[in-house]
């Protein structure tokens, strides 16, 4: 059975920063700037289908402060989760060392987590997660795809299965509604990278 993936959306935050009302500014600093960029991202998501997977590319962003990271990343994720009409998944790209701390802090503060490419083709879970969730996410990430049949062998314990359910619920992995297979988000966005 072929799974229908979410609609893929590529969002280049550096370019978006230049195109939005903040065109005079080169850096992602201050809340109003972050708010403007977040609204521009949300506008792009509105034209996607009812289920989307966005690659939020921060590669061209030089400076990202905590206030802006809270608006562009944490509030974007939080607002998206609160929207019943649209199931939005996200992967962050280009989260290099100078941005990592800001993103980690703002996600933790709101109890959120995100899949992030932290160096070339290396994905990590940033933000708030427990040990069992990280193990379950790591397993899906390593295999790329886990079928329903494989789950009982790979995750025999009830706690591990519950952790997998949580990472799906938290949109850190994608479960196909048709096959029940669980996909690593990093594999689904490969086409955009």
């Amino acid at each position, binding site marked *: 059975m072929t799974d229908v993936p979410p609609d893929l959306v590529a969002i280049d935050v550096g370019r978006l920063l230049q195109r939005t009302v903040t065109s005079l500014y080169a850096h992602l600093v201050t809340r109003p700037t972050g708010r403007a960029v977040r609204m521009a991202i949300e506008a792009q998501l509105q034209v996607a289908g009812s289920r989307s997977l966005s690659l939020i590319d921060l590669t061209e962003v030089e*400076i990202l402060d905590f206030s802006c990271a809270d608006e562009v990343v944490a509030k974007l994720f939080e607002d998206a989760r609160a929207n019943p009409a649209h199931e939005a998944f996200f992967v962050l790209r280009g989260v290099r060392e100078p941005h990592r701390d800001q993103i980690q802090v703002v996600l933790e503060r709101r109890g959120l987590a995100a899949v992030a490419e932290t160096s070339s083709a290396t994905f990590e879970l940033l933000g708030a997660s427990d040990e069992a969730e990280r193990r379950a996410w790591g397993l899906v990430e390593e295999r790329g795809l886990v079928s329903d049949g494989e789950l009982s062998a790979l995750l025999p314990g009830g706690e591990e299965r519950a952790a997998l359910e949580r990472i799906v619920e938290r949109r850190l992995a994608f479960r196909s509604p048709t096959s029940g297979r669980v996909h690593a988000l990093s594999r689904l966005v490969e086409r955009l990278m």
Partner: protein
Amino acid sequence: MNVIPVPGSLDHQTVDAFLDEVALLGGGRSLFDARHLRWVDPNGMVALLVAGTVAARRQGVVPRLEVPESTDVLGYLSRMAFFEAARDVFELETVPRRRGGGPSDVLLEITSVAANADVHEVVERVQRGAGAILSSKLGYPVTSVVQFSVILSEVCQNIVEHAGAAGWVAAQAYNWARRLGRYVVVISVMDVGQGFRSSLGDEHSARYADRWGDTTALEAAFLHGLTRFADSGRGQGIQQIRRQVQRWNGAIAIRSGTARIGQVPEWDDTPPLVDGLQPFPGAQISIILPARSGT
């Protein structure tokens, strides 16, 4: 005319006493006599501007400033663009000409902060030249300019978001040969707005009842990350600045109203909490970042 003698050395150590004196000013025009100023750091320069602003506000007349006699001090002040800012605050008999050229340890000239656009301007300016100074004088990695910019951005946003009045920011590197045996970067950010007690009062004062005051407000923001916003994502700016300053073994102190709170590294003997200062408007923030050992 009230004559306020500016001390011979006006820096992070002497600035409280100077602002205390300004807080006690009565009516009548003020003259700030800086003729004998021999040493001034960014805290001293920005403190002069906030002092003049407070005097003007209280007395309804622009104060005068007698500029320093020392050509070295005039040179520092010129390089830091002090006189450009001072023209809007003081009546100046003569404005020394800006000196250009030569290597400089200025990371950020005195910059007025009133709106978010000013925060972008600060970050832009720091990006242009701070990296070289941070790595050559302080021995910080090249990428530290990002964290440095983030500190400045967050601390300046504190003015825009909470103060309700304009302020200034400045940063410069110095060789603290006698005091610490190495270079430091001194950052000063001051405003003449409502201060922490007023900013947080509506949201948090009831919980503290009659204990609410400048000290408890500073503790609430500085130690516990409280903010006037209900949003859980807010209030992290000062917390994250503290964390980064600690990573660099630096010192940070905030005065607001009658109290000052700080995070004090082992090389500094400043008390972490001081109260009983004279009530001074706004918030005055000092950050000192030392060179890495062996630099």
